[in-house]
């Protein structure tokens, strides 16, 4: 398995948006791989580039603002970045399927579910209408929609949010894609429905052998769902590890921060919920230093000068990109120690986060820098943070809405 070429190989992908407000550096050189049937979580705050990365994979970036400016996306032996539009169209929906965040707006309101499913199937398979309808019925019952024959004739607004997302899943799985990309598939749903939909997604991709990329801002969501996790920040992957390893040994200060900002049932009595102070950087500037430095409690002088590359946590390890043996990689000069991972802040008595060198403030776009060392008593959870992209609503039609706030508790340390 390790020797076979990966299903998907993203190599140094760079995506920029040209807007009236200037160029937005959305994805700044992202590299990762995915084996067949593997499930990968892509985690980060809104605006960190996780959705843009995946829209770029099958070239669905908002036009004309969004552009792939570098890198390759090798899928099944083809570079998707270079394909002609019609070649790409044959792959979309058939080999790579997508599920979007809001099932309320992702289905066409004036077409019946039947029309929308049948057209998907018939766009890629030689099939009569009747055959396609039969297939659609089968798919709907597979995702647990009762009375599929009659429900096929319904319009999207006649379904609840959870049911609509099931329809989206059924539609995405219609052609048994090799890769399924689910972009915040449960964020818009009621908390009670979320677990059901996630379970369905996991079971079905497993049954069909589809690989899955699950995009979320919520580490709790990916915990029981994925084999591996990439944590993204400011258009970079800052930590990459198997799911078990990431939760057992979170090694990037941002990941540590993420874990401490989620309520946990197993938390030590009285240990406070710690938000990550500050905001994601302004992505209109190409970062020259570590993009997380302004918010980091472990930062060194060096972090203000250089951007740490993604590298194996243990120096000299042979790099394995996929599978259960995948190498734990981080992009950090001063990773937290195991004790500090648990505490959520530096424990070295003489350590003090390096102050910003004069003049760099604007460039790295620090939020309220003066207060980063004074975290106690603040309760703004990071999910509530506004991503930097929401600064210019509508500019270039950026697709990333601010994500709603929610805290599913207790599923963090299941495994």
């Amino acid at each position: 398995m390790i020797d076979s070429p990966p299903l998907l190989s993203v190599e140094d992908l760079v995506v920029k948006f040209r807007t009236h407000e200037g160029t937005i550096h959305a994805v700044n050189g992202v590299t990762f791989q995915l084996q067949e049937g593997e499930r990968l979580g892509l985690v980060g705050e809104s605006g960190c580039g996780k959705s843009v990365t995946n829209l770029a994979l099958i070239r669905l970036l908002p036009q004309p603002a969004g552009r792939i400016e570098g890198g390759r996306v090798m899928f099944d032996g083809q570079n998707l970045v270079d394909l002609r539009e019609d070649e790409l169209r044959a792959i979309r929906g058939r080999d790579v399927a997508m599920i979007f965040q809001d099932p309320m707006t992702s289905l066409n309101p004036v077409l019946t579910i039947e029309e929308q499913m049948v057209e998907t199937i018939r766009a890629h398979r030689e099939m009569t209408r009747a055959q396609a309808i039969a297939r659609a019925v089968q798919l709907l019952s597979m995702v647990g929609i009762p009375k599929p024959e009659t429900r096929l004739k319904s319009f999207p607004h006649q379904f609840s949010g959870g049911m609509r997302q099931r329809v989206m899943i059924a539609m995405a799985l219609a052609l048994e894609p090799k890769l399924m990309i689910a972009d915040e598939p449960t964020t818009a749903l009621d908390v009670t429905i979320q677990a059901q939909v996630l379970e369905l997604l996991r079971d079905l991709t497993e049954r069909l052998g589809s690989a899955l990329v699950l995009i979320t801002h919520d580490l709790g969501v990916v915990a029981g769902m994925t084999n591996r996790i990439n944590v993204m920040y400011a258009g970079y992957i800052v930590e990459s590890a198997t799911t078990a390893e990431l939760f057992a040994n979170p090694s990037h200060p941002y990941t540590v921060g993420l874990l401490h900002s989620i309520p946990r049932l197993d938390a030590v009595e009285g240990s406070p919920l710690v938000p990550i102070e500050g905001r994601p950087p302004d992505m209109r500037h190409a970062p020259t230093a570590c993009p997380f430095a302004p918010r980091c409690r472990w930062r060194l002088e060096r972090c203000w000068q250089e951007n740490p590359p993604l590298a194996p946590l243990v120096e000299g390890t042979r790099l394995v990109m996929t599978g259960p043996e995948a190498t734990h990689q981080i992009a950090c000069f001063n990773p937290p120690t195991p004790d500090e991972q648990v505490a959520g802040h530096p424990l070295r008595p003489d350590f003090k986060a390096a102050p910003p060198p004069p003049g760099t403030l604007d460039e790295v776009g620090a939020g309220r820098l003066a207060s980063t060392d004074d975290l106690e008593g603040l309760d703004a959870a990071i999910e509530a943070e506004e991503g930097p992209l929401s600064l210019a609503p509508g500019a270039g039609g950026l697709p990333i809405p601010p994500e709603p706030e929610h805290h599913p508790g207790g599923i963090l340390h299941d495994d």
Partner: protein
Amino acid sequence: MTRFIVRRLLGVLPVLFGLSIILFAFVHLLPGDPAAAILGQHATPERVAAMREYLGLDTPLWQQYLGYLDNVIHGDLGSSVINNQPVLREFLVRFPATIELTVAAMIFAAGVGIPLGRYAAKHAQGWSDGMVTIISLLGISIPVFVLGLTLQYIFAVQFGVLPASGRIDPRAGLEFRTNFVLIDSLLMGRPDLFLNGLSHLILPAIALGSIPLAIITRITRVSVLDVTNEDYIRTARAKGLSEGRISTRHIMRNAWLPVVTVLGLQVGGLLAGAVITETVFGWGGVGRYVVDGIFDRDYFVIQNSILIFALVFLVVNLLVDILYAVINPRIRYA
């Protein structure tokens, strides 16, 4: 659905009722005696009295109104005081001409406006924005009669390629049956007459259709742009559908909704514009009938023609509402 139609239908009745009262009041309550007005300044008192009796003006007003209402309900819209022809019959004889003209204008407006709007939406960044702005500005700023006269001068007088007025060459020998020139010519099996009628229709239809053209172009562009940015269009692309299918099925099926509403709202303007267009092009429709009635001070013709115009307008709006409900599933099941 049936309940929806019935409810909307019932909404039309009070409007017509109110209008009949207002029109009645106009004829009977305004200073001046309709009988005297009809007969002109030099009528003898005896003739005025006779006319008053003939018109039933000597009974109490409420009785007159009830009598009028009773007649209207039974389809009797009175007769012209000039030539004693029944208003309803005269109206119906001329109505096909007006329908032919307004439908042609609507086809022109929608047939040019919708593709133009779609084109402009597709090339939203470029010069097409300016083009749409200029078209809509000119459309609402050039009155029908100015455009009509200009077209007449250019195409009929200057180049002589299209007829200046009338519905068909009177010497061509068309037998009027349905009073639709295009239909009658086909019934006679005479394509030459059909083309003759069509050539007469072009200029008035363009003149009358210019305002709806401007509005439809603008609304189509905005509507298509709005829909193109919807999430479900991204879903359609992600499913691997062709751009053609996305455009016709996914974008237009949604973008239609506001366009249909606006098309419906234009019908009133078209009916009103037809009155003027018919005057410019000597088009023998109901618009001419009303205007002639005004010059003849034929009060009953004016009163009841306006009532029929309102009825037609309300019914068309009703049909548009129903059509809207049919193409918009969210309303159908609401």
